[in-house]
């Protein structure tokens, strides 16, 4: 499974959405499931999926699907590779 597939699957499973909505418009609180608890669940799922531990500032900045792709680069995860 590619990093992109892993990344998308976390969003699909955590927020109950389909892959066609995963773009720059998919931001924090854009769907009811991406609330405060959903955010923590998504971060934990990404940490499990990629074997990383994210820093507090990156968790706070992780405000959208596309920002998340940038944040993961810091941890050696290239989602778009």
């Amino acid at each position, binding site marked *: 499974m590619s990093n992109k597939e892993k990344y998308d699957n976390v969003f699909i499973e955590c927020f109950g959405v389909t892959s066609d909505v995963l773009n720059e418009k998919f931001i924090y609180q854009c769907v009811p499931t991406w609330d405060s608890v959903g955010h*923590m669940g998504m971060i934990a799922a990404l940490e499990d999926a990629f074997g990383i531990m994210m820093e507090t500032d990156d968790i706070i900045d992780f405000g959208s699907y596309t920002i998340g792709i940038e944040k993961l680069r810091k941890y050696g995860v290239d989602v778009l590779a």
Partner: protein
Amino acid sequence: METFSLDCIELQNYQPNRYPFLMIDHVDAVCPGKFARGYKHLTLNEWYFPIHFPGAPNMPGALQLEALAQMLTVAITTLPGLKGMVTHALQHTVRFRKEVLPGKTFVIETEVISWKRGICKGKGIGFTDGEVACEADMLITIPEILEQYLPKKNS
């Protein structure tokens, strides 16, 4: 981490609920971040027995669940730096198995499954007479901590 007990006075340093909503009398053993167990003695003087129900008093299921959640809270608020913090419920799934009657001791056992970034996932079981009365999977939060990790809205 060390295990210790809390009497009814010490307990109030870690559990912000008060009469008539404090559903714990004593914490027999708490291991911060791991587990907490204790009990509530139920006399006919409990405020809810005369009204739930007249002639057939039993502890409301919602309050049984509240007792489990309060004990799970103690397992978290006894962690360093969290003393006295307020917790909120996020999601509970509960199964009731028998009536909890006046004159009994409601034994409460809770276990922390995970505690991370202000969210605690745990489970709890309530007993009377050595039999399971209710059991629950619980998700609670300390909002003051959780909010430290959230994106700014519409960022």
